[in-house]
């Protein structure tokens, strides 16, 4: 396929704008000095600094997506708008931050199960789901999800009946997908806030279902 699929390849100006070795060294020295000063004074510990980096690199902030899903469950008109034009409907709730990428919401039903992936890199609907989990970016998920989606789902603990059609959506720099999971049974009297709390990140990627609250 000669289809254009450029994903998030860094633009060429990136290389031209790299700092020189001398500039980098000067900046390294500046940071090292600041860090040593603050650690020696006991204001901050090296351990804390490492922890911060790991937290923010692996940040999970799927709350925006959960709000979108819960709204679609309680408001049929919103659900229709979401499926017709997700970019616009998500913006209605005040979530954005994408730069030209379109959001598409795909709905799970009793007969169709959707999964989102990015087979070439790690495109991800981050304004609604936060940062992607590590496995989403790793080659095993990215390569196998298209070939053997059912097998991958089993590894995630989700066994689908053969009668359910599985659809895999390959994200790109232009289009980001979000799964609208099925509303679990036993939530009939739940408020929108209570429903929001049930929605998991994995269910919006499509590698999990939402369990009925016990």
């Amino acid at each position: 396929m000669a289809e254009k699929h450029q994903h998030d390849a860094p633009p060429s100006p990136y290389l031209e704008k790299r700092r020189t070795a001398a500039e980098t060294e000067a900046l390294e020295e500046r940071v090292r000095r600041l860090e040593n000063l603050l650690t020696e004074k006991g204001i901050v510990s090296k351990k804390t600094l490492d922890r911060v980096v790991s937290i923010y690199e692996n940040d999970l902030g799927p709350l925006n997506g959960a709000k979108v899903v819960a709204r679609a469950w309680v408001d049929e008109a919103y659900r229709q708008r979401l499926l017709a034009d997700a970019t616009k409907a998500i913006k209605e709730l005040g979530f954005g931050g994408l730069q030209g990428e379109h959001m598409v919401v795909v709905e799970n039903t009793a007969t169709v199960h959707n999964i989102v992936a990015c087979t070439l890199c790690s495109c991800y609907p981050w304004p609604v789901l936060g940062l992607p989990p590590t496995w989403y970016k790793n080659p095993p998920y990215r390569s196998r999800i298209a070939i053997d989606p059912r097998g991958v789902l089993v590894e995630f603990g989700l066994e689908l009946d053969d009668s359910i059609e599985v659809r895999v959506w390959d994200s790109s720099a232009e289009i980001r997908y979000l799964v609208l999971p099925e509303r679990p049974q036993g939530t009939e009297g739940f408020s929108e806030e209570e429903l929001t709390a049930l929605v998991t990140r994995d269910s919006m990627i499509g590698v999990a279902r939402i369990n009925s609250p016990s």
Partner: protein
Amino acid sequence: MDRIARAEVADMEGVGALPRRSGELIFHDQWECRAFALGVALHEQGEFIWDDFRQHLIASISADDKTSEILDPSGPGYYEHWLAALEKMLIEKGLITSSKDLVL
């Protein structure tokens, strides 16, 4: 649905927004990562209010004529401003002294 990262840091928008690609934070060099950690850790420990830091960051970016608009997130530059804002913040809070503690 754990979220340990603080929203005011992770979800900054506009001029001060953290450089990201596909949602992930971008660090070109190790020092950028260390500078990021310093700023966030000190804030989380209550050394300063995030918005005060953010204002310094925005001021630094805006004062740079090459980057009067939002910085290109895929190129270096953002963390120079971050570092400048952090130094300013720490001097203001009396945690460091500009004359003796900084390499300028």
